[in-house]
């Protein structure tokens, strides 16, 4: 990697003072499980790395009667182990699927949400939109997007936690650019599909950072995550889905369903939500919701199989949330 200046601030204010407004000049170091690799390959070449590791205010989990505030520097392992996750099974399941103990112990909530795409053209230093989408369109795109891929961006959003958090209606707290500046936004709004190489896959300015994830009280909602993985290793899932549903009298009154690894952002499936609300969850309705989810899929030349996987993931996430057998390999 390129030589860089290393800053290790103690407070959120100091972090903001150290971050540059120029894109690429500074990078934020959380657990480092993604950033270090990107720096070693010189995909990012910051002049300064600002570590959040000693900012203690980012490491707490606080619950009150309406919400849980999870600091961005809480490790994935600590979040999964925290008793509050009893109320958010989708989170515990999503983290549990991350097979590498090292990734769970070292990776953080904020870092997991802000990791860069796994797109192999991006990782081969050809940019997020490699050749304005042509590299993906005409190349090997087996792991790329099946939704939201009609623009230049065709990579898959890599976060494994985001679908669960979005299903749970989480918000993120963003600090900066100036000390005292604070923005709260739904997590799904935080992500965006970049339209040029100057944009990143989220709305953060270079001198802003995610400080907290805020989970609303579940108020009786049940939730689940389901990943379709190729093997038990730490590799990313092929497709993932998370569902959070409010069921009263055996009928789904409200639902939030989000998919991962299928679009340049975590993908909320309105079609699946519309298909399940007003019905009980059973094998047929869950199947129909899965089918509805993929009705708007636009697979690329080599990833049609992901459409089938997305359908199954939605179905199984709903069944799992309802406490029913998902089927599949044990």
């Amino acid at each position, binding site marked *: 990697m390129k030589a860089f200046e290393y800053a290790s601030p103690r407070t959120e204010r100091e972090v903001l003072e150290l971050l540059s407004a120029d894109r690429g000049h500074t990078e934020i170091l959380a657990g480092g499980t993604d950033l270090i690799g990107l720096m070693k390959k010189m995909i990012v070449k910051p002049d300064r790395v600002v570590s959040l590791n000693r900012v203690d205010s980012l490491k707490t989990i606080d619950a009150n009667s309406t919400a849980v505030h999870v600091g961005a520097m809480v490790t994935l392992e600590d979040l999964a182990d925290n008793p509050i996750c009893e109320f958010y099974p989708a989170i515990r399941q999503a983290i549990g699927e991350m097979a590498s103990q090292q990734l769970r112990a070292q990776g953080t909530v904020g870092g997991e949400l802000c990791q860069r795409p796994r797109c192999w053209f991006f990782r081969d230093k050809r940019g997020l939109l490699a050749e304005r989408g042509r590299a993906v369109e005409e190349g*090997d795109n087996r792991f790329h997007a099946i939704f939201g891929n009609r623009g230049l961006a065709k990579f898959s959003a890599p976060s494994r936690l985001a679908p669960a958090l979005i299903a749970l209606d989480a918000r993120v707290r963003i600090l900066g650019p100036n000390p005292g500046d604070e923005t709260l936004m739904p997590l799904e709004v935080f992500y965006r599909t970049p339209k040029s190489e100057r944009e990143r896959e989220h709305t953060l300015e270079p001198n802003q950072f995610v400080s907290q994830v805020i989970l609303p009280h579940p108020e009786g909602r049940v939730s689940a995550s389901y990943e379709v993985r190729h093997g038990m290793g730490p590799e990313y899932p092929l497709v993932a889905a998370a569902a959070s549903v409010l069921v009263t009298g055996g009928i789904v009154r409200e639902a939030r369903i989000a998919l991962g690894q299928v679009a340049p952002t975590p993908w909320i499936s309105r079609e699946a939500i519309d298909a399940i609300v007003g019905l009980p969850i059973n094998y047929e309705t869950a199947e129909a919701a899965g089918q509805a989810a993929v009705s708007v899929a636009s697979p690329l030349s080599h990833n049609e199989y992901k459409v089938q996987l997305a359908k199954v993931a939605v179905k199984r996430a709903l069944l799992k949330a309802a406490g029913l057998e998902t089927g599949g390999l044990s």
Partner: protein
Amino acid sequence: MVEYVWPSKEDSSVLGKSIDKIDGVPKCTGTAKYSYDINPDKVAIARALGCPHAHAKLKSLDLSKAEKVPGVVAVSAMKKVGDEIQWQGDLIAVVVGDTEGAVAEGLDAIVAEYEQLDVFVEDANLEAAEAAGRTAKAGGKVQLEKEPDGDDPDFEEKELARLFKESAAVVEGRYGIAAITHMCLEPHGSTCEWKDGKLTAHLSTQNVSGTAGQFAAPLKVTADDVTVHCDYIGGGFGSKFAVDRWDSLAAQLSKDLGRPVRLMLDRDLELKNGGARPSGYAESKVGADKDGVIKVWDTHFLSAGGFGGAPVNQSVIPYVIVPPNYRRRGTNVKINTAPVRAWRAPNHPQGCAMTQTAIDDIAAKLGLDSYDVFERNLVNVEDKDRRGVYAEEMKIAAKLIDWKAKWHPHGKGDKKGSVVSGLGMALHTWGGGGHPSTCMVKIHPDGGVETFIGSQDLGTGTRTVIAIVLAETFGLPVEAIKVNIGSSKYPASGPSGGSTTVGGVSESSRHAGLDALVQLNEKVASKLGVPAESLVAKGGRIHAKDDAEKGLSWKEACSLLGMSPLEVTSKGAPGRNSKLSSSGVGGVQMAEVEVDRETGQVKMKKFVTVQDMGLVVNHKTAVSQIYGAMVMGVAYALFEERLMDPRTGAFLNSEIADYRLPRLGDIGEFVVEIYEPESERARGVIGLGEPPVIGPGAAISNAVANALGVRVPVLPLTPKRVLDSLQLAARNA
């Protein structure tokens, strides 16, 4: 006259038992120093720059900015302007520096311009390869029982057509196996120390005794000025026989700079340059009688060896089961990848995967039990002597996996929701004769024993094998033998390839040990006043065969040597006349899988290997070798493949994060049985490293086909391939 034989099973005290690796503790505690761990004082770090394009001409190369980066001590071009580059990641230049950081910045500062040329990497696409002018005819062979009538030019076609017409069942299919890389945990490279006109090269190598000369020539010295040293190697699998161009450069740079230089490839360049196993794709037509016995076979296959590498050899089609009539023809596809290298059992895994799958399809077509079809086809095993061994091994394997109880016709098993299960099997064969090896044994007057062989431990447990052989020979405990391997200054031994090491070092160690014992026995005999031939070395003593009381302790016996140690150097004599070793093994593998029809995920439930290997030297390391081969087999059957971008020729998954390998949770239950009746043991030591990696592809593919009732034609059987095959089958139905 010494008779070079092994003791009987009953007479053996350590030979054939389960012995822990004598270097197991250093290996698993991290104290073992691998080549990558060698870190001499003032070592300079060298790293290479890979070409970003798969096919290009180097138009300009400017190293001046890199040379100016603080901490960089040398920059060396590996290509010159005008050179044509044939694969992504081919090495362009090397930067040497004081720190990894300086070197990285140096590499980033190199300015290279390329003219991009046409790229072709689609090794499975004959049509595209022909259109791109990227094909060459491969070797082939036709064998027909019937003699041609006269000189009919169409005899071959007519005869094949007749044979297919007479067949009760004909299967036509496409069967393939993707290219994989060696993925050595320790990448290729070396640390080179030039001092006072001599080179010490700490090379990660499978060939300690054969590489000194390769270093010497470019340095304009002779091999006696070079020491190649490798105590521990982190994986080679056939890819580390030679001094690579980057190793030669490291040696030259050490000479030029007057300080040690370490040049190990990083993971990305390791996967792009360090070796791959060639792919194979077969279009086959197979005809059998109503019992499934194959009568005729016709295959056209494709294989790609990378730029200048050797594709799959035609000789492995068909594989093990070779019917009386067959034709094989092939096309080699020229693709923009690095040349392939030998990969554990070269050609055999591909041959097995491309053909024993078709045999299973014959069983499916006739609605027969695959076991019965394989058993009936043993009449087609070329080596008649091995037919009975396979039959016995099949029986044992079937019992271990409970074949008869679990079998169901293809696609007709019970369903648990979307999950179906299946069984599959395959047969394999390999040589494994010992390589030439020389062993020096040194017995000290105080009873100490040390041994020197210019061999290496590729993972076979070479040290432990040598210690067991000499411990058995001298009647000593295994830990009493101090084993020295890993230096080119020791007596020469062959490279570790082709499963030749255990046979080789067992031969030379037994010879040297017995030769030394004869000399020691003479001294003991004259002291005791008994004939030397009446003495045996057992239980830490040398004593009369029929009177254990009449003897000396090992230590007392060795004290008779006087002031100087007894040194004996001996070569083994592997080959036809040896009673210590031979070659030619076989085995049977059976797999049980579960498949989720909705997601295409395949899960290993149980995997059985029954393997013969002549005489077992160390039961524990032999079983470990088989486990390792089975894991590697699961890897290429279900997970790993080299993914090349068809448009740009980029190697897409050249990092560990993207190159999928199985984890413990993916391999299921392994059961290993070594088939070692006296008839096999009497054949002596035969190498084992390769054979059990051959069958997993076909066995697992057959199990998946049995579960689904649909053949997934190309390995690895990823969820994508399984779902694509199911979709195609549904469309065709």
